[in-house]
């Protein structure tokens, strides 16, 4: 494919929107827990668990229908997978929340424990269900791109602009969450309370705000969103779960959170940057201009450079990482 042709640009922009989506979900989720004062490096693990839950749920639920009729297509099955990813994401986040809020454990260590479990546990379940330790069975019921839901726009979706916009509904949801979370965080009393427990929990407490409960909500919301990121990866972008599916996205999302200054609009910009970088990497990799491992390292190097070049302006919530003692 020639660079700077229309086809390349369409592929780049469409790919960038797809690559931005899981980062955006996860970074917006991380925004809630960090704004409430809790560090959550378990996001990487939550994406893995969410992706696993979505793919396994869809596969197990669709199997009897497909056995009955191989052409069966049931609209609610993929959404059940999404729901499963959210539920599992919340459960895993809840573990991190209990450990770091209630028991005031070290949040980095707790997050590491979650991540380590997410590297190992899926293999055991996969072996039990599918007889191998790395992949789930392919699913038929995916969250498809928009043209599957809006057949009357099929002509539009074959134009260049249409091909960019022909994305999974989850992509649209991720971008819609930017104004939504902005409103929630900055325009509602709930958002003010969440931010206050992350900035000055003592003062918030003295005003009668339940610091623990606000922090639980922050962490559980991050579980919802990182779980969605996982579902997007396993049953929308792809059609199965594969081990280590998050592939560092949880960590890059944390960097985007800092680069985006814990603000939805900043996070949108930062994740778009990393999304474009990743889409560019994928396109370049196909051309064989550079050895592929070097290109694969690119997003991680870029993340470092961005953080290092972004001097002194990032100011995290004041009470971040510090357990609150009443």
């Amino acid at each position: 494919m020639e660079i700077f042709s229309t086809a390349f640009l369409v592929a780049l922009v469409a790919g960038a929107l797809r690559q931005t989506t899981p980062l955006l979900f996860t970074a917006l989720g991380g925004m809630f827990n960090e704004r409430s004062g809790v560090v959550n490096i378990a996001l990487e693990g939550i994406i893995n668990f969410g992706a696993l839950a979505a793919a396994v749920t869809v596969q197990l639920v669709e199997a009897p229908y497909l056995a009955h009729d191989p052409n069966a297509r049931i609209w609610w099955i993929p959404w059940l997978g999404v729901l499963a990813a959210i539920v599992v994401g919340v459960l895993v986040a809840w573990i991190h929340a209990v450990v770091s809020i209630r028991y005031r454990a070290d949040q980095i260590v707790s997050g590491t424990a979650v991540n380590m479990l997410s590297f190992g546990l899926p293999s055991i379940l996969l072996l039990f269900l599918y007889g191998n330790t790395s992949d789930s069975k392919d699913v038929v019921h995916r969250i498809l791109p928009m043209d599957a839901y809006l057949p009357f726009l099929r002509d539009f979706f074959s134009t260049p602009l249409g091909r960019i916009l022909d994305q999974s509904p989850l992509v649209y949801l991720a971008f819609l969450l930017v104004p939504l979370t902005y409103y929630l965080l900055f325009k509602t009393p709930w958002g003010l309370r969440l931010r206050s427990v992350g900035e000055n929990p003592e003062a918030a407490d003295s005003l009668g705000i339940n610091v623990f409960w606000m922090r639980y909500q922050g962490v559980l919301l991050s579980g919802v969103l990182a779980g969605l990121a996982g579902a997007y990866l396993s049953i929308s972008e792809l059609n199965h779960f594969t081990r280590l599916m998050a592939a560092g996205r949880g960590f890059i999302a944390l960097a985007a959170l800092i680069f985006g200054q814990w603000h939805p609009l900043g996070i949108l910009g930062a994740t778009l940057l990393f999304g474009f970088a990743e889409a560019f990497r994928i396109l370049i990799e196909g051309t064989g201009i550079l050895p592929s491992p070097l290109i694969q390292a690119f997003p991680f190097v870029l993340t470092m450079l961005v953080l290092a070049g972004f001097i002194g302006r990032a100011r995290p919530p004041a009470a971040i990482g510090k357990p609150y003692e009443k």
Partner: protein
Amino acid sequence: MRLVPRGEAPALFVAAVSLLAVLLAFAASLVLLALYGASPWEAIAVVYRGVLADPRGFAEVLRRAVPLTLAGAGLALAFRAQFWNIGAEGQLLVGAVAASGVALFGPGEGVAKLVLMAAVAFVAGGLWAMVPAYLKARLAVNDVITTLMFNYVAIYLVEWLIHGPWKGKSVFGFAYTDRFPASAWLPLWPGTGLAWPGLVLAVAAAALLAWLLGATKLGFEVRVVGENPEAARYAGVRALSTLLQVALLSGGVAGLAGFVEVAGTHHRLLAPLQISLGYGYTAIIVAWLGRNRPLATLLTGLLIGFVFAAGDVAKVALATPFQLVQVVNGLILFFLIAAEVPIRYRVVWRPERG
């Protein structure tokens, strides 16, 4: 019932509670095995016969414990200085790369060559940790994220080398380097797979770091910085220089672990997951379990080494996946975190008065 914070818990109590947590994690793992369809009793018997009662099996525990203790002792030092080094995995890998470079293309014969390999591995691992440390001290860049990013960069560096410029001429389709010349192999304990110089290195590193932390100016500065950064500034501790030295040592010993893996076990540079098996990440548990005391990582490294060796034996005898090791390690970490509660709080059964 309510929890009341207590002062410093007695050391024996801490050790007992930690041990109980580890045993509970093992019990939980056995329950998991039972759910999976394997007999827990058989698992215990298999592990006892294959690991504890068999000298060769026990040598495997030591072989696994060496990189875990090396990396873990370094992390203990780093965590003491509030340097959140989650990058031991990457530091281990670049140590392996540097040692392999010397082994394949470098000068030297015999012991001198091995010493040179160890030295460059130490420096490479140290430098790999010093970049994030510098960024943290100078630009306040989050060290958790930078050290994590550097892990991925190290992984792809190894991938690139073994697929590209360092791909062996005699290995046909495989992605790894040629075998090291015999002079770059660490000697083995007879009849086992254990490279005994690695064991010496691990013990020496743990002891040296403990001495450094307890009895030198750097150690004092680390403890002050770790416990009270404000006071450290008033006392004139140069945070940058302290942090860089800590990073050099912490990353350096992880680099040594990489040297031991390639020179002692593999005798070539190969895929990142084959070199390390997640030792760098697992070393976080080793340090945490040792309460960030370098000497204690000798014991905790041995314990986690046992988990790895047991996972190997179970894989062969019970056909369990090797990833079971990560699950057991994750469970150990969780039970240890839970153990913090009785260590830090007393349970009082009477209601609060007034």
